[in-house]
């Protein structure tokens, strides 16, 4: 039986909640792994080292930058969960702004804050073995990864566009049939094309696909009524830093 630890950094907790959300499969998971550290589920904490660490959230404080190194040292396999851990999350919007100005506008006592000027992905600090993308992650991909690690095989985590999955599940393309702006052509698959399945465009929460064509996607979004500002805002949501290069050509 392998030991599993779940760690939280700057994040909303939604990704680690995906593990509890496994409902039907949760007992099977609990039967195969020893949950050694998962504060959202249990106060019981077992000492490391850990076979697998699931890491949620981004690095936004000096203390967290130290903590992630300790977790890496204590983990055989480290898997990052979600847009925060892989791309800095929504909070990475600060990376292109003045944090002191933000803090003074938002907090009565900004001097209480002890924060870095940037929100950075886990991989900017330590080596990461697998990245599960999304905001939140897809619980199917989480189960697939745990299952693969149990079996000693490579997890099936595609890097192609969302469009592949859209067509495989027979969604009607919201761009072509309805003129909806959609980031699907430049966004990494893994969610099962869930937003287009409900008739709305992909908003890119999985971050860029393997070879996104930023200028061509910008042409597409403009053709469907978006301004340069709209396009920049669309990219600057969940994975702002990961999409920076793709969006760079947007205006």
């Amino acid at each position, binding site marked *: 039986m392998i030991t599993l630890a779940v760690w939280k950094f700057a994040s909303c907790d939604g990704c680690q909640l995906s593990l509890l959300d496994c409902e039907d*499969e949760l007992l*099977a*998971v609990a*039967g*195969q792994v020893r949950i050694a550290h998962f504060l959202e589920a249990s106060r019981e904490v077992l000492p490391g080292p850990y076979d697998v660490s699931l890491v949620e959230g981004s690095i936004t404080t000096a203390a967290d930058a130290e903590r992630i190194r300790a977790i890496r040292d204590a983990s055989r396999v480290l898997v990052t969960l979600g847009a925060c851990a892989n791309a800095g999350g929504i909070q990475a919007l600060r990376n292109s702004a003045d944090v002191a100005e933000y803090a003074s506008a938002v907090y009565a006592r900004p001097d209480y804050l002890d924060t870095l000027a940037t929100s950075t992905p886990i991989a900017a600090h330590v080596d990461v073995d697998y990245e599960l993308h999304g905001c939140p992650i897809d619980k199917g991909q989480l*189960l*697939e990864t*745990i*299952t*693969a690690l*149990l*079996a000693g*095989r490579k997890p*099936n985590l*595609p*890097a*192609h*566009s969302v*469009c*592949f999955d859209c*067509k*495989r*599940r*027979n*969604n*009607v*393309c919201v*761009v*072509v*049939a*309805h003129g909806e702006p*959609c980031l*699907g*052509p*430049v966004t990494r698959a893994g969610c099962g094309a869930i937003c287009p399945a409900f*008739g709305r465009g992909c908003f890119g929460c999985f971050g860029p*696909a*393997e*070879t*996104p*064509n930023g*200028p*061509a*996607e910008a*042409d*597409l979004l403009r*053709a469907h009524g978006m301004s340069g500002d709209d396009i920049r805002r669309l990219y600057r949501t969940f994975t702002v830093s990961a999409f920076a290069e793709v969006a760079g050509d947007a205006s």
Partner: protein
Amino acid sequence: MRSEETPRLIGADGLGALFTALRDRGYTVVGPTLRDGAVVLAELDSAGQLPSGWSADTEAGRYRSRRREDGAVFAHCAGPVSAKTFVHPPRARLWSADRNPDGSVSAAGPDAPAKRFAFVGVHPCDIAALGVLDRVLAGGEHPDPVYTARRDGTFVVVAECTEPAATCFCTSMGTGPAATAGFDIAITELLDGGHRFLARGGSPAGTEVLAALPSVPAGAEDTAAATAAVERAAAAISRHMPDEPLPALMTASRESPRWADVASRCLTCGNCTMVCPTCFCTSTEDVTDLTGQHTEHQRHWDSCFSLDFSYLHGGPVRTSTASRYRQWMSHKLGTWQEQFGMSGCVGCGRCIAWCPAGIDITEEAAALAAARLEDAP
């Protein structure tokens, strides 16, 4: 009765009888229906689900369903779903294995579908595409059991094309708009002078089903009207491939500067290959369960537009977008001929309509032809 014998005339309500006849014979009927703003192919329970009074306007990167004044049922083209989805499904289990309590392992082959499909209202280009898949997936030394289990015993009611879309180019590929082979029943929808269908059998099974439907012998004027409707469709087709052997064009265009041009527009999103009724490429993966006692070898649609698809030891072979687009188009129009003795393109135009970027394979072929002429000494 053979197809050159007198066709039958079926009334507008005859499609209900056709559905009943097919269902009585154990078929699961697959036909066009309107869903989420597009005419898609789906399993249908009754003729009432057919897209009566719906057409589709298409252009490069654009598809809009459109309400019609009349009750035409088969006046639409280039929907995003083709028969491929049913006979070569997006995901299939090739085999599975279970570890038994005594430690031995038992294995099972692919799922055998419980359904026999009857395709109703597919167009001649779709029949041509089934012919291509027959050759590719079942015509070699190692027929694909997933495909043959779904394709063998299918019943095909082709609707001759009377209203091609702006993205269609079947006349260039020799696949339409008339139906010549590969069907059990061919019907031609007639609207002027009353909604009715001219029907002819193309196989003993088709003739038998046709005989079970309420019909009268078609008059000479009905037959002439059907011929004229199909001829009008042929004349209405506005897109064309260059009038030259396409395999030679693709070979000569290997280093064409056009590939870089199309690469600047191509999103590598894979939509063209997914909607193509003949693109058959797949990848396999092993899917285990949490207990480690059960594993499945699954196959899913893949695409030459993904990096992983050309991943060999050390890395992907086709890293640039230009190389991936060239691979797709060169195979489709060129090397497919060497490999299978036929074109991989049937001229349905789905790749044109459903490319979000509006890349048009006929325009790209024309550009390659023009670039070659410029290069000519």
